[in-house]
C-alpha cells in the first residue's frame, strides 16, 4: 500500500510544525524519516497514523483518502518509541489485544486467536515469554513484543517511532537486522522515524531528510550520501570538512589556504565541502591545493585511523577530520603537532549565488 502525502501543514498553537509537506512513500518499501529533534518527523508519522490531524492537506493510502479517518479505522500498525505495552496484561494478552477488541462478528474464535498469538510470538522469537508481564522484559524484548502486537492485525502499513532509540548499541544493531529481514519477508510498507543517520542509511530503501518542519531531500541512501542537495543534508549526514573562501580566477582563497578549482567556476563567495575519505594527507603542498594544518589528535580505534586537523594560517569553524589506513599510519607515523597538507580528490562546492551545489573532481 503506497502512502501519498499532499500539502500537509500542521500547527501547534502558533508554532508551525510542518510546512507544506508533499511526499510519496512507495508500496512495500522501508522509508526512513530522518532529522534532528524538532524537525517534525514524529509529527508527520503521527499524522500518517491518524494520531494527529493536520490543519491542511490530504493523506491517501493507495489513492484512498484517509485524512478524515480515525486512527482506529486506518488499520496501520504503530510502534511507539517507549513501546506502550499494557502493563496489566501478559505478553500474550498484549499481542491478542487488537484481535480481542474486534467487533464480535469479525472476531476470530478463541482457538484461532491463541494460534495467531503463538505464531506472532514465534515470529519475534519470544514464544517462551507469553505469560510474562511487560515489566519483566528487557528493552529489546519489549520492542519485539510491541512489533508483534502491531503486526497482529496484519496491517499493510507499519509505522515505527524511533524504534531503536532507547536500546543499547548492540541490541540496536541486532534488532535493526532483524527488522530488515522481517520486512524483506513480509513486504509491508514501513515508515520509521530516526535521528540516527547511520540507522537510516543502513536500514532503508528511501530516506526523507527533514529539518524545521520541511523536507530537505528524498533519495536512496547511496544518492543521499553521495550527492546531498543542501548544506544541511551534507552536515547532517556524517562528518564533513568545510573551507569557506572567495573564488577569484579559478582559485579559492582564505588566508594562507588556496585551492585551484577545475575550469568553469564563477567568481563568488563559496564554501567547499569535503568528506573525510575525499581528502588525502601529504607531507608537502601540491600544485592543486595549499591547505596547511597542524595535527591536533589521532584516534586509532576503528577500521581507519582518524586524524583531527587544526588549520595553520587560515580559519574554519570546526576541525577537519581525515581518515588514513592503518598501513599508511604505520609507514609514516604522524605525531601530534606535525605540520601537513590536505589534498582534495572530490569536493562539493556551494556558491553564494547558485541554488545547487557543484561536484568537483580533481582526479
Amino acid at each position: 500500500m503506497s502512502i501519498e502525502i499532499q500539502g500537509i501543514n500542521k500547527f501547534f498553537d502558533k508554532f508551525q510544525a510542518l510546512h507544506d509537506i508533499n511526499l510519496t512513500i512507495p508500496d512495500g518499501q522501508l522509508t526512513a524519516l530522518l532529522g534532528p529533534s524538532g524537525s517534525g518527523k514524529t509529527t508527520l508519522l503521527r499524522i500518517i497514523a491518524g494520531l494527529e490531524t493536520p490543519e491542511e492537506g490530504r493523506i491517501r493510502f493507495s489513492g484512498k483518502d484517509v485524512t478524515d479517518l480515525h486512527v482506529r479505522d486506518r488499520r496501520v500498525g504503530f510502534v511507539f518509541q517507549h513501546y506502550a505495552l499494557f502493563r496489566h496484561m501478559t505478553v500474550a494478552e498484549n499481542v491478542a489485544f487488537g484481535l480481542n477488541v474486534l467487533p464480535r462478528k469479525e472476531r476470530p474464535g478463541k482457538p484461532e486467536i491463541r494460534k495467531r498469538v503463538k505464531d506472532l510470538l514465534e515470529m519475534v522469537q519470544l514464544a517462551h515469554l507469553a505469560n510474562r508481564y511487560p515489566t519483566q522484559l528487557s528493552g529489546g524484548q519489549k520492542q519485539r513484543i510491541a512489533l508483534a502486537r502491531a503486526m497482529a492485525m496484519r496491517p499493510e502499513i507499519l509505522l515505527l517511532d524511533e524504534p531503536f532509540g532507547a536500546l543499547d548499541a548492540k541490541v540496536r544493531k541486532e534488532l535493526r537486522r532483524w527488522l530488515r529481514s522481517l520486512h524483506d519477508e513480509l513486504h509491508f510498507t514501513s515508515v520509521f522515524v530516526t535521528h540516527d543517520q547511520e540507522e537510516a542509511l543502513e536500514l532503508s530503501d528511501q530516506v526523507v531528510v527533514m529539518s524545521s518542519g520541511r523536507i530537505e531531500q528524498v533519495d536512496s541512501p547511496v544518492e543521499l550520501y553521495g550527492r546531498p542537495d543542501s548544506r544541511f543534508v551534507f552536515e547532517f549526514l556524517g562528518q564533513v570538512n568545510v573551507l569557506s573562501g572567495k573564488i577569484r580566477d579559478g582559485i579559492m582563497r582564505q588566508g594562507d589556504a588556496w585551492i585551484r578549482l577545475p575550469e568553469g567556476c564563477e567568481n563568488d563567495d563559496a564554501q567547499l565541502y569535503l568528506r573525510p575519505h575525499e581528502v588525502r594527507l601529504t607531507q608537502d603542498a601540491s600544485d592543486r591545493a595549499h591547505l596547511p594544518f597542524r595535527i591536533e589528535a589521532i584516534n586509532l580505534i576503528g577500521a581507519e585511523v582518524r586524524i583531527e586537523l587544526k588549520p595553520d594560517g587560515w580559519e574554519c569553524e570546526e576541525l577537519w577530520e581525515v581518515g588514513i589506513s592503518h598501513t599508511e599510519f604505520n609507514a609514516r607515523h604522524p605525531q601530534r603537532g606535525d605540520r601537513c597538507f590536505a589534498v582534495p580528490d572530490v569536493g562539493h562546492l556551494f556558491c553564494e549565488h547558485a541554488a545547487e551545489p557543484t561536484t568537483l573532481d580533481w582526479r
Partner: protein
Amino acid sequence: MATTELSERPAKRLSAPATKRVLPGFGLSLGISLFFISLVLLLPISGLFIRAAGMGWEQFWFVITDPRVVASYKVTVLAALAASLFNCVFGLLLAWVLVRYEFPGRRLLDAIMDLPFALPTAVAGITLATLFAENGWYGQYLAKLGIEVAFTPLGIVVAMAFTSLPFVVRTVQPVLEEMAPEDEEAAMSLGASDMTVFRKILMPTLWPAIVTGGALSFARSLGEYGAVIFIAGNSPYVSEVISLMIFVRLEEYDFPAASAIAAVVMTISLLLLLVINVWQGRYLKRLQGG
C-alpha cells in the same frame, strides 16, 4: 606473604559495612516515629478498648445491639456507602478534568478541591443545611420536584460526600498524571473503541487508586459528625448517625457505652483499610512485575 595479605584485606573491608547503613539515623528516627504513633494513636485506641472491655461482654453486646444504635449503624453505613460511591464516580471525573484538559481557572479549581478538608466541618454542615433547606437556594427547587434533602438520610449522604470528596480526587490525580497517553493511542491504533479503551486500558490502572480513595472516603464518612448533624435532622431510627449516638451516650455520662460504640466503628474502619491495603499490595505487585 603478599598473597595472604591481599586475600585477608577485602574480608575485613566487607564485614564492616554490612552492619552499617548508608543513610544515618535509622534507629533514632524509627524510635521517635514509633513513640509518637504510640502516644497519639495506639495509646488512646487501647484506652478506648480497655474502657469498653471493662463493662463485660454481655453488657457490651447489649449496648452495641440497642435497636436505636443498630438503626444508626444502618443509616451511617448505607449513607457512607452511597456517598463514597458517588465520590468514586464524581471524583474520577474531577481528577480527569484537572489532569487531562487545559482550561482557564484550572489551577484555581485544583486549589478549591481541598476546600472540604480545610473548611471546619460545622461550617460545611450549616452551609449545606441552609442551601438544602426547604426555602434554601437549592432546596426550594428540589422541593418542587418532591425531593427533600435537608433533615433526611439523603442530607446525610450529601454532607458525607461533600466532606470526603478530596480523598478520591487526590488519590486518582497522581495516577492519571503518570499515565502515558501512548497506551491509549496504542489501544486505539489497534482498533479499540473509546469505551474499550476506558474499560481495558484506563480502568485497570486507575482501579487501585479509585478503590483506595473510595475506602478512605468511606472511613471518613463513617465517623463524620460536624457536617452531618446540622443537615441530618437526627430523628431516632431514621436519620441518626453513629457518631451522634456516641455523643448522646457521652451526654448521658455513659462513658463505657460511648466507648463500646466507638470501638465498633473503629474496628470496621481498621478492617476495611487493612483489607484494601492487602488487596492493593497484591494488585500493584502484579502490575509492577512480581
